[in-house]
C-alpha cells in the first residue's frame, strides 16, 4: 500500500465523525454562503480601531487628552422659599487637539420644567384605575415648574455671551474659537425652585418633615455643568431624559455655600473654615475625629439636633469647601442632621468616613452607616487603588440612593417606633456600600454614564457584592442567624430569572439606559454577575483581580470606554474573552448546557460495518491497515456480549501485542482502563461556557472535570467527550455548584434526577 494512501487514511480515521457529517451535508448542499457567525469570532467589527488616543491594549494612548473644568461658585440656599441661587465662575481648559467654536453645558434641572419633553417620554397610555389624588395631580393640577432660570452668561470682562438653550443643554458661543491648549473663563448666574424629592422620586431636592416643619436638603445636578468633549463622542450632548446619568469633566472646585446659620452642611471637598461655622464644642469633636480610628466621634448628637430643629435662625452662615480633581459637586444641608465621623487608614493616608442623618434614621444609622462606609473604602481600595479623596460621606435620604464625589444619599429608614425589619437593615447597608462604592466607578474611573449605564453600575454592583460579603465577615453580629451576607445581586443563580425571561423584554447590556426594559438587571445585576462569573469560573481570582486592578489604575481620573475595559481585561490576563463579551454583553442569550447521553464503548478485533464501509470507499481492506484498535458501542448491531468480559486487551490482538512490547520496565505508565464512555453534551442556550462536570463512580467517588469553553468552537449545539476509567460511571452532573447561571437545571444530570422544583419543595415541607 502506498504511503500517500496510508496517510490519507490516518487523517480520515482521526476526523471520522466529521467526514461522515460532511457527506450528509453535501446532499443538502446550500447555495448560499454566510459571514463569520462563530461565537468565538473576535470583536474587531464591534470595537473601534485603536489609535493614538486609546491603544489596542486598552490603555490611554500617547495622544490621550481630557478637558479640565474648574469652578468657583457662590451658592445660596433659601430655605424659607426653597430656592437656590448661584453664581459660578468657570475656567475651561481645552486640552483637546481641536479648536472649539462653542461649549455645551448641561442644564439637568430643566428636566423639571413643566413642559419638559421627558414628561412625555413614555407611551403606555391611560390607566384604567387611579387613586383620586393621582388622577387630580395628573390631570387637574399644574405640574411642578422647576428648571434653571439663567440670569446671564458673561465672559471674564463682563461682556454677555450668546447662548442657546436646547432642553437640558445650553450652547455658549465663543467670541472666537478656543484654540487647542488655551483656556476660557466665563461666568453664569442662575436660580431655580427646589423640588420635593420624595414626591417625584428625584435624585436631588428636599424632604419635608411636617412634625417639626423642617427640610433636609440633598442637592445635586444643581448648577450648569460643562458637557464632556472627547475623542469618542465629540461633545457628549445627548439630552438628559432621566435614566442615563452623567458624563462629566474633572476639575477643581471652590464652593461657598450660604445656608441658614443653624444648618449643618456636608459636601464634596474639604471644609475650609470649620472654626468659623462650627460651635466650639463641635469644632473640638471635629478635631478629635480626625484621629479616631476605632469608632466614630459624634460631632452633632441626636439631642443637639433635636434642639436645633425647634427654632429657625434668620441668620446665615457660609461654609467653604475645596475639592481637587473631582467630576461633580453635591451637598446636604439641614437643621436636623446628626453628624459623625471616624478616620480610616488607607495606603498611609487618613480618610474620613462620615455619616449625616436626621433622627428619623435612628437607631439604624448610628449602628451601621459609618461601618458600611469604612468597609466599602477598604474592600474597593484593595481591588482597585487606594481611595484618593480625603473623605466619604453617607447622607440619609428617605427613598433614594444616589452618588456624587465624596458624598452620596442613601435610604433605609426605621418605622416611627424605631423598629425595622432585616430587609430595611440589609437594604440600607447594601445601598451605602453601593453609593460609596460609586466613588471608584464612575467618580474616579470616569466612564460615560449617559451612554453606558453598565460601566459604572455593573462594575460597582460587582464590587458591592464583594464588599457585602466582607461586611458580613467583619461584622458577624450584623448577619446573626445567616450563613453569609444576603446579597441580592452577584451570585449567578440570582440572574437566572431575568436571563430566562421573555426575549421581547430583554435588551443586551450594550444598550443605552433609556432604551432598556428593566434597568436594574440590565445595567446592574447582569454585568455584575458576568464579572463575578469571570472571576470565579472563567479566569480565576489571580488573573481576574490583576486585570481588574490594571483597568482601574489605567483609567483612574480618566474617561474609559467599553472597549478599553474589554481590551484591558484580556491584555492583562492573556485570556481571550471576546467570546464572553460578545455573548454576555452584546446579546440577550442565556446559558443552558445539558448532558444528552452517555454510551459505553468496547474494544474489539473486528471492524464495525461502518468502518468496513469507509475502508471500501478508499478501496482498502482490513489487511491494508497498520495496527489499529476498533471500538464499538453496546447498541451496535454487531456488538457481541463477550466484549464486556475481562480486560480491553483481551479483545484486540494488536492492542495486546502493543502493550506486551511496551509495558516492560521501560514504560510502567501504561494503565489499562476498564471502562470507556462517550458522553454527549447539548447546548440549548445561546451562550458558550466551559462545561463543568462531576463524574460519580460506582465506588462513590466524584471527579470534577472542566472542559474549556473552546470545546464549542466547531459545534454550537452538541459536543462529545470520552472518559476512560477504571471505575464505572454511575452519575453525571453539569455545573454542580451553579456557577454559570444555567437557566434550566432539569437537563444537567444523568441519570435524569427529578430535582424538586422550589414549588414542590415548599409543598413537601408543608406536608412534614
Amino acid at each position: 500500500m502506498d504511503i500517500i494512501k496510508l496517510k490519507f487514511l490516518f487523517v480520515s480515521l482521526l476526523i471520522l465523525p466529521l467526514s461522515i457529517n460532511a457527506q450528509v451535508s453535501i446532499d443538502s448542499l446550500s447555495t448560499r454562503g454566510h459571514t463569520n457567525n462563530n461565537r468565538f469570532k473576535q470583536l474587531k467589527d464591534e470595537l473601534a480601531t485603536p489609535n493614538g488616543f486609546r491603544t489596542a491594549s486598552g490603555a490611554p494612548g500617547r495622544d490621550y487628552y481630557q478637558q479640565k473644568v474648574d469652578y468657583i461658585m457662590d451658592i445660596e440656599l433659601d430655605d424659607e422659599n426653597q430656592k437656590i441661587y448661584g453664581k459660578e465662575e468657570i475656567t475651561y481648559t481645552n486640552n483637546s487637539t481641536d479648536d472649539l467654536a462653542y461649549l455645551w453645558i448641561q442644564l439637568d434641572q430643566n428636566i423639571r420644567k413643566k413642559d419638559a419633553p421627558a414628561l412625555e417620554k413614555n407611551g403606555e397610555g391611560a390607566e384604567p384605575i387611579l387613586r383620586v389624588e393621582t388622577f387630580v395631580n395628573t390631570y387637574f393640577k399644574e405640574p411642578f415648574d422647576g428648571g434653571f432660570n439663567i440670569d446671564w452668561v458673561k465672559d471674564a470682562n463682563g461682556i454677555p455671551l450668546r447662548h442657546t438653550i436646547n432642553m437640558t443643554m445650553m450652547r455658549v458661543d465663543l467670541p472666537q474659537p478656543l484654540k487647542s491648549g488655551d483656556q476660557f473663563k466665563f461666568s453664569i448666574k442662575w436660580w431655580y425652585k427646589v423640588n420635593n424629592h420624595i414626591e417625584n422620586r428625584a435624585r436631588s431636592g428636599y424632604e419635608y418633615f411636617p412634625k417639626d416643619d423642617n427640610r433636609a436638603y440633598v442637592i445635586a445636578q444643581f448648577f450648569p455643568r460643562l458637557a464632556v468633549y472627547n475623542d469618542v463622542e465629540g461633545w457628549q450632548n445627548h439630552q438628559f431624559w432621566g435614566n442615563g446619568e452623567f458624563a462629566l469633566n474633572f476639575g477643581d472646585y471652590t464652593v461657598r455655600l450660604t445656608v441658614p446659620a443653624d444648618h449643618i452642611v456636608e459636601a464634596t471637598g474639604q471644609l475650609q473654615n470649620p472654626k468659623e461655622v462650627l460651635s466650639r464644642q463641635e469644632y473640638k469633636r471635629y478635631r478629635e475625629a480626625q484621629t479616631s480610628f476605632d469608632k466614630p466621634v459624634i460631632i452633632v448628637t441626636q439631642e443637639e439636633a433635636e434642639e436645633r430643629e425647634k427654632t429657625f435662625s434668620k441668620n446665615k452662615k457660609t461654609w467653604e469647601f475645596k475639592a481637587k480633581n473631582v467630576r461633580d459637586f453635591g451637598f446636604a444641608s439641614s437643621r436636623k442632621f446628626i453628624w459623625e465621623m471616624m478616620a480610616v487608614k488607607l495606603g498611609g493616608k487618613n480618610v474620613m468616613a462620615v455619616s449625616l442623618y436626621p433622627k428619623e434614621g435612628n437607631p439604624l444609622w448610628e449602628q451601621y452607616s459609618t461601618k458600611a462606609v469604612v468597609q466599602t473604602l477598604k474592600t474597593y481600595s484593595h481591588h482597585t487603588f487606594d481611595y484618593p479623596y480625603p473623605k466619604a460621606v453617607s447622607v440619609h435620604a428617605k427613598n433614594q440612593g444616589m452618588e456624587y464625589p465624596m458624598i452620596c444619599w442613601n435610604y433605609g429608614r426605621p418605622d416611627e417606633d424605631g423598629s425595622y425589619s432585616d430587609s430595611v437593615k440589609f437594604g440600607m447597608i447594601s445601598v451605602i456600600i453601593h453609593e460609596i462604592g460609586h466613588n471608584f466607578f464612575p467618580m474616579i474611573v470616569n466612564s460615560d454614564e449617559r451612554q453606558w449605564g453598565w460601566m459604572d453600575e455593573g462594575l460597582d454592583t460587582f464590587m458591592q457584592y464583594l464588599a457585602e460579603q466582607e461586611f458580613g465577615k467583619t461584622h458577624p453580629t450584623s448577619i446573626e442567624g445567616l450563613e453569609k451576607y444576603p446579597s441580592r445581586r452577584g451570585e449567578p443563580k440570582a440572574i437566572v430569572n431575568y436571563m430566562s425571561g421573555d426575549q421581547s423584554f430583554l435588551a443586551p447590556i450594550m444598550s443605552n439606559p433609556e432604551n432598556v426594559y428593566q434597568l436594574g438587571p440590565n445595567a446592574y445585576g447582569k454585568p455584575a454577575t458576568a464579572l463575578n462569573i469571570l472571576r470565579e469560573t472563567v479566569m480565576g481570582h489571580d488573573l481576574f483581580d490583576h486585570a481588574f486592578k490594571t483597568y482601574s489604575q489605567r483609567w483612574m481620573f480618566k474617561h474609559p470606554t467599553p472597549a478599553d475595559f474589554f481590551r484591558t481585561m484580556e491584555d492583562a490576563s492573556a485570556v481571550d474573552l471576546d467570546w464572553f463579551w460578545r455573548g454576555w454583553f452584546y446579546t440577550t442569550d442565556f446559558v443552558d448546557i445539558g448532558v444528552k447521553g452517555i454510551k459505553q464503548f468496547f474494544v474489539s478485533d473486528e471492524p464495525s460495518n461502518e468502518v468496513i464501509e469507509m475502508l471500501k470507499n478508499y478501496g482498502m481492506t482490513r489487511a491494508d491497515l497498520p495496527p489499529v484498535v476498533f471500538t464499538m458501542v453496546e447498541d451496535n448491531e454487531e456488538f457481541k456480549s463477550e466484549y464486556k468480559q475481562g480486560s480491553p486487551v483481551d479483545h484486540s490482538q494488536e492492542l495486546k501485542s502493543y502493550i506486551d512490547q511496551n509495558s516492560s520496565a521501560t514504560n510502567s505508565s501504561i494503565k489499562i482502563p476498564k471502562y470507556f464512555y462517550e458522553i454527549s453534551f447539548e447546548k440549548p442556550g445561546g451562550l458558550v461556557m466551559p462545561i463543568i462536570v462531576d463524574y460519580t463512580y460506582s465506588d462513590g467517588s466524584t471527579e470534577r472535570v472542566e472542559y474549556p469553553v473552546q470545546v464549542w468552537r466547531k459545534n454550537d449545539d452538541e459536543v462529545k467527550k470520552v472518559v476512560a476509567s477504571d471505575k464505572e460511571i454511575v452519575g453525571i452532573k453539569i455545573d454542580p455548584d451553579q456557577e454559570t447561571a444555567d437557566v434550566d437545571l432539569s437537563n444537567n444530570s444523568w441519570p435524569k434526577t427529578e430535582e424538586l422544583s422550589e414549588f414542590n419543595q415548599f409543598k413537601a415541607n408543608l406536608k412534614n
Partner: protein
Amino acid sequence: MTKLLFAFFFLFVGIIPTHNFYVSTTSIRYVPEEKVLQITIQVFLDDFEAVLQQSGNKNIKLNPADSQEEIDQEVADYFQKKLLFKALGETINFDFLGKVYKNDLLVAYLELKVDSPLTQLHIKNNFFYEYLPDQKNIIHLKVASKRKSFLAISNKSEFEVPDDFFDFKD
C-alpha cells in the same frame, strides 16, 4: 407616603431606589399529569407591606419575626382579589399554600386544580396598581418545554394564552 403617588415620579427613577423599578413575577407551571397549575409569586416586601397597609390594615407589618397567621390571611386575601384565572369562561379558584421571606422579597405559593386538560387560559394580574401606577407584573407560563411570558401593566393586565400553547408534547 401617599405623596409617592405623584403622577410622574417614574420619570426620575433610575437612581437605584429601593429596587430600581416596580416589578413582580408570577411563574406558572402547568403539570398536566397532576392536573394542576403551580404558581409562584415574587413581590417586593416593602411595596407589598405598603399596599396592604393602604388597603385597610393600617398596622400590618410583613415581619418574619411576628406571628404569621394574620399575615398569611391578608396575603392570601390580596392575591385572591388581584389574580384571576379563567378557562372556557369559568373562573378557576386557587389555593394559597403559603409564603416565605427571601431577603427583600415575599415568595408565595399557590395551587390551582383543573378538572380536565387545559385547552385555554385567561389570566389577569392586578397587583399593586392601586398604589403604584407604574408597577409592572411579569407572568411566566411554562408547560413541558414550552414557555410564554406576559408583561402586565395597569392598562393592560389581562391576557388570553394562545390556544396552540396547550398543544404540547413532553
